């Protein structure tokens, strides 16, 4: 028994080095297991669109059109790869930094930014996109993914739930509880940790003394996988395998995507206070988009025409986003009371009436 457990345990440990299919300069590590051209070109397109979306969102903050934008610049391969590895019926549970994941899922960019424009909390319909509202309290969305997976299994669906989590959130109690529940109930969940090295200013070494975040999986009895989060091909493959395991009834997987947040936490943050410029420069050399572009170009799977078409599509996306976002108006104030309960209580009806009377009162009254 002890020996068997030991052997089973060893299989749960991550590899010493992150799974990588493509080197930073675009050289393939090995052809074996590399996703094919159509898959990688879809990832390329999503990376380009995601990056352009982020640039536009950051610009909109500077123009005062958005309250704040938490950038995922540098992490796009992780965001894109995780979503493209899933079926559209699989659920994703994103955090506030995972707008590119939502864009890749097909959510309208204007609806993604409703939250950060400050017009409502969640701008999209979670049921249309199988995407939960972007979650701000850390790791609290992880048990939701577990519950959704439980319900999906109970209903006889093949649905997988993927929870996005950051490195800092792995310290939260809900991260632990979610992994434990998912493993105990053997549920179809993928926990996808983007280790971007910092939780605002605090480095990952202050979050854990474990050899890696993926090592935490063995404590729950689930496999942990370490993947190069700047290699879209590797993320696609690793998350794809985890989703397949989940779908085949083999339970949850913890994936740690090693990546880097190139920009500050948000536009309100000053990253120079906690990390050296050389560190950022080093990670810029491992850029996920440049890497995939180089590989696809060198292997003859991407030509200038496709590149130009995708670039044009990205410009179109940005222009359309600018136009429609600035035209957005907040919902009418009466809606403040409409969604608290399935029907407003008498108190809420009274308060709605108070607000209505205030806003229709003549000037100076």
């Amino acid at each position, binding site marked *: 028994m002890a020996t068997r457990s030991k052997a089973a345990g060893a299989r749960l440990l991550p590899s010493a080095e992150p799974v990588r299919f493509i080197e930073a300069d675009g050289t393939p590590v090995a052809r074996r297991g590399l996703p094919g051209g159509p898959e990688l070109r879809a990832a390329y397109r999503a990376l380009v669109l995601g990056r352009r979306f982020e640039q536009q969102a950051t610009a909109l903050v500077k123009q005062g059109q958005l309250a704040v934008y938490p950038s995922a610049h540098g992490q796009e391969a992780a965001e894109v790869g995780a979503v493209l590895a899933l079926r559209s019926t699989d*659920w994703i549970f994103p955090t506030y930094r995972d707008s590119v994941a939502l864009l890749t899922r097909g959510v309208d960019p204007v609806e993604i930014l409703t939250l950060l424009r400050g017009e*409502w*909390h*969640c701008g999209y*319909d*979670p*049921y249309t996109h199988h995407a*939960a*509202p972007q979650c701000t*309290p850390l790791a*609290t969305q*992880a*048990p*939701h*993914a*577990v*519950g*959704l*997976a*439980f*319900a*999906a299994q*109970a*209903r006889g669906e093949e649905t997988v*739930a993927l929870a996005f989590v950051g490195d800092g959130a792995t310290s939260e*109690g*809900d991260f*632990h*509880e*979610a992994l*434990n*529940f998912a493993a*105990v109930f053997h549920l179809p969940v993928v926990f996808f940790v983007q280790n971007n090295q910092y939780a605002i200013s605090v480095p990952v070494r202050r979050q854990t003394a474990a050899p890696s975040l993926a090592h935490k999986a063995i404590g729950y009895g689930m496999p942990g996988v370490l993947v190069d989060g700047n290699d879209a091909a590797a993320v696609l493959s690793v998350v794809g395998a985890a989703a397949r395991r989940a779908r085949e009834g083999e339970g949850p997987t913890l994936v740690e995507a090693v990546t880097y947040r190139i920009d500050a936490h948000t536009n309100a943050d000053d990253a120079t206070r906690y990390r050296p410029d050389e560190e950022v420069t080093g990670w810029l050399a491992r850029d996920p988009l440049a890497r995939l572009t180089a590989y696809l170009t060198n292997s003859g799977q991407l030509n200038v025409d496709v590149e130009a078409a995708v670039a044009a599509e990205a410009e179109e996306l940005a222009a359309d986003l600018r136009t429609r976002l600035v035209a957005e108006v907040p*919902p009418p104030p009466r*809606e403040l009371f*409409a*969604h*608290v*309960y*399935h029907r407003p*209580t*008498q*108190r809420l009806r009274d308060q709605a009436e108070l607000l209505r009377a205030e806003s229709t009162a003549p000037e100076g009254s």
Partner: protein
Amino acid sequence: MATTSMAQAINQALADALAEDERVLVFGEDVGTLGGVFRITDGLAAKYGERRCFDTPLAESGIVGMAVGMAMHGLRPVVEMQFDAFAYPAFEQIVSHVAKMRNRTRGRVSLPMVIRAPYGGGIGGVEHHSDSSEAYYAHTPGLTVVAPATVADAYSLLRAAVAWPDPVIFLEPKRLYWSKEEVTLPVHAEPIGRAVVRRGGTDATLVAYGPSVRVALAAAEAAREEGWDLEVVDVRSIVPLDEETLVASVRRTGRAVVVAEAPGFASVASELTALLAERCFHALAAPVLRVTGFDIPYPSPKLEHHHLPDVERVLDAVAALQWEDA
């Protein structure tokens, strides 16, 4: 008519909900094989199977968080927090997600789920087993908060809670678990959102909910000897609150005492008192008074009787309602 305890009524409500609706699940700590530390879920796992009624790892935030995901995807989870004060690890899930999901998503995602918690004192529980935490929940927009005081209500309100489209905090007065009534189940009492006059009276109104309703009724009985004819209103549904029944009673009697076990400062009792003062001012012959627990951490078993509102303390408050002016 059968003699039924509140514990049996809750058990029957859960059993009937499980039998009638395959989307209903019952889970929590020790609720499966053991049947719960208060035996409220006794026999449910055996009858409905471990996919419908089951034990979870010992983690309240995980229990409530998992229920959120289930409710998002078509199930109707009914979870048990083993004791009132053991629910606090789930507080973030309850406040940030359970209460807000409908609002965050502009009405697109609702969470039909029930969080049951044995609450209140009076059973000689050692620390962390006797809290009255209703104010935390009542203060959180998006939560429906109910507390039955009778066996019939325990059954009926719980069935209503399971069928309710919004998340419900269902507070079970643990010292009433073994109280009995002549009642045949299933029973359909007044819906969520309605208060009930438990005893008619003309001189003053006692307002109470959960475990304090019995205290109020006993006080009303004892008050007869003093020559006071007291009305007792059982709030039942803290959110949504049936202001009209409360206000109508107090406008009729002109005097009111609010009785509740929780510490009085910034409490549900405070809110009820303020409401009655605002809406019944011209009918009031005296300020609305409160009889509540003291503003102290819940006391040890041998001291708790000092803390809990009792008949004497309620009668003292009634006596202070400026009768000399009447």
